[in-house]
């Protein structure tokens, strides 16, 4: 399978993971290991940046695993930019999952603030991965603003409802010049496979793994689903057809 490159980093795995909602940090670490993920997002609000031995961060020290700090909790570009600076200083990474969702209920991203923060942070040298609605025009604007990838949602965060935004994701994938990572709403490995089959470059999964009865097994299932989806995409999938393919074509006489 082809590797995935975002900014200056190359990934073997196209499955990115999250760190919330797990029953323990130990289970989280095991699940991430089973997923073979190389990029894991962590909420700045959850970690103690002043504590060298923060329990959550200690569980993420693993060779080949990169941290993707996220700004979950901020409501404006200004707050996100301030948080990004602190994250870069404390966690020694210029990668950032930009999440600006002023609505604490459905955690839906604010496109206006996200575009502004992306523009400013990209100019400052951050590798910005903005979490956004599946809005094709917004994704192009984010690309212009300097986003290293775009992260449109499949469905509301934590909803496990799959690719509800399928038609718009298809347009985003078709138009994008930066990697498209489908984030939020993927509830089962088949959802992840479907995302990769349609040409998404990667997916980010958290809730579906974290709250599974066996998160480690589920992480492995997602890994397999993502690989299957990508392999199918690279193999070139046959288009579905409503018509039977005649074994004696009507136009054979022209050959």
């Amino acid at each position: 399978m082809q590797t995935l490159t975002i900014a200056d980093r190359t990934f073997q795995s196209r499955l990115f993971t999250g760190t919330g909602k797990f029953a323990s940090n130990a289970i989280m670490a095991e699940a991430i290991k089973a997923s073979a993920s190389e990029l894991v997002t962590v909420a700045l609000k959850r970690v103690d940046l002043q504590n060298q031995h923060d329990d959550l961060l200690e569980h993420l020290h693993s060779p080949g695993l990169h941290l993707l700090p996220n700004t979950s909790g901020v409501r404006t570009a200004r707050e996100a930019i301030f948080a990004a600076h602190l994250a870069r200083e404390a966690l020694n990474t210029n990668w950032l999952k930009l999440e600006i969702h002023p609505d604490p209920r459905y955690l839906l991203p604010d496109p206006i603030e996200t575009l502004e923060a992306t523009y400013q942070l990209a100019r400052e040298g951050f590798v910005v991965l903005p979490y956004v609605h599946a809005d094709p025009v917004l994704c192009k604007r984010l690309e212009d603003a300097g986003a290293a990838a775009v992260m449109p949602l499949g469905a509301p965060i934590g909803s496990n409802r799959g690719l509800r935004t399928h038609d718009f994701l298809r347009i985003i994938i078709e138009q994008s010049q930066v990697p498209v990572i489908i984030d939020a709403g993927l509830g089962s490995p088949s959802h992840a496979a479907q995302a990769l089959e349609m040409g998404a470059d990667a997916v980010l999964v958290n809730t579906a793994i974290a709250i599974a009865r066996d998160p480690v097994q589920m992480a492995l299932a997602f890994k397999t689903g993502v690989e299957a989806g990508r392999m199918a995409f690279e193999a070139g999938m046959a288009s579905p057809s409503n018509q039977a393919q005649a074994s004696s074509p009507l136009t054979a006489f022209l050959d």
Partner: protein
Amino acid sequence: MHFHNLLNQWDWDEVSQQIKAQTHAQVIDALNQNRPSLNHLMALLSPAAQPLLENLARKSYHLTRQRFGKVIHLYIPIYLSSYCENNCVYCGFKVSNSMKRKCLNKQELLDEGLAVARTPFKHVLLVSGEAGKKVGCDYYLEAIEMFTPYFSQISLEVQPLQSYEYEKLVHKGLHGVFIYQETYHQKHYPLYHPRGPKSDFAFRLETPERLGKAGVRKIGLGTLIGLEDWRTEAFFTALHLSYLRKKFWKTNYSVSFPRLRPIDGPGFQPRFTTQERDLTQLICAYRLFDPDLELSLSTRESANFRDNAFPLGITAMSAGSKTNPGAYAQQDSLQQFSINDERSPEQIAQMIQSKGFEPIWKDWSLFLQQNNSDNALKPTQSI
């Protein structure tokens, strides 16, 4: 329109009757809804839902895991002052109780903050009686300023303030405010709150709107369970919540369940007794009605109930609580009410882990709320 206008359109007794009249079929219908309406909530709160409590609990458990995961947030209350001008008939701090009062001075505040900062807690709830001249906005500003280096989330449970005062507090780092209406029964409210500023039903009722305007991030609602019929109170709390959610959509909401229990000897006896089964129904009904709502359970409840009920829908619990000012730095003063779960924070955390959940001590950073702050709020200090 203010919520008070909306509330005035409803009749308490009619709502009570409607809830009581709900049928088994209506409960089943409500259970089958993805997003139950206020009418469905009536069914979920009704006596007809009691035989279906297991069904409510299963759905509530599932929704809570889906939205919040296998975690529980922990916080600790810090009592600042036992001075109070009110004479709430149910409260240990009421003005007519002759007792030694205590208000923490600057040094005592710092000592208390440092004592709590040595524990794993990063989320604190500052609590005070209502004595505006002695313990008002300026006092809270000072307390928050003093505590911001040590804690990542600071909330208040104090007297209602004006909107501009909340704005000042938010600038200093205030996160949430818990303001319980105690009862939505307007006619009976004065019976419980006969004297002092708290006797103003409307001013208290409109506090969440002032909080929303001031940009407070989390608003905690609730009633004192036992004053009136808990089912009707829960309906009106949900009505209030629904109103606020539309008006202040950037705000997070939380509901708590302080429950009065009958006491031995002289003192206030709740008019309505509620059993643990009722409280469980209440928690599950709220969760089904609003899957994103934070639900909080305090140490007023017994260890046994908390251990078994929290996975059903609760998202936050207090632990290691002491309800007298200065108690963590070990000073003697009287408690507001007795607590029923006296385990240490470590014991509570162990219990949570033994149930397959992660105790969360920190889920916020003050630096995330820069928009409201006139000076940079730095990450918390470890001591």
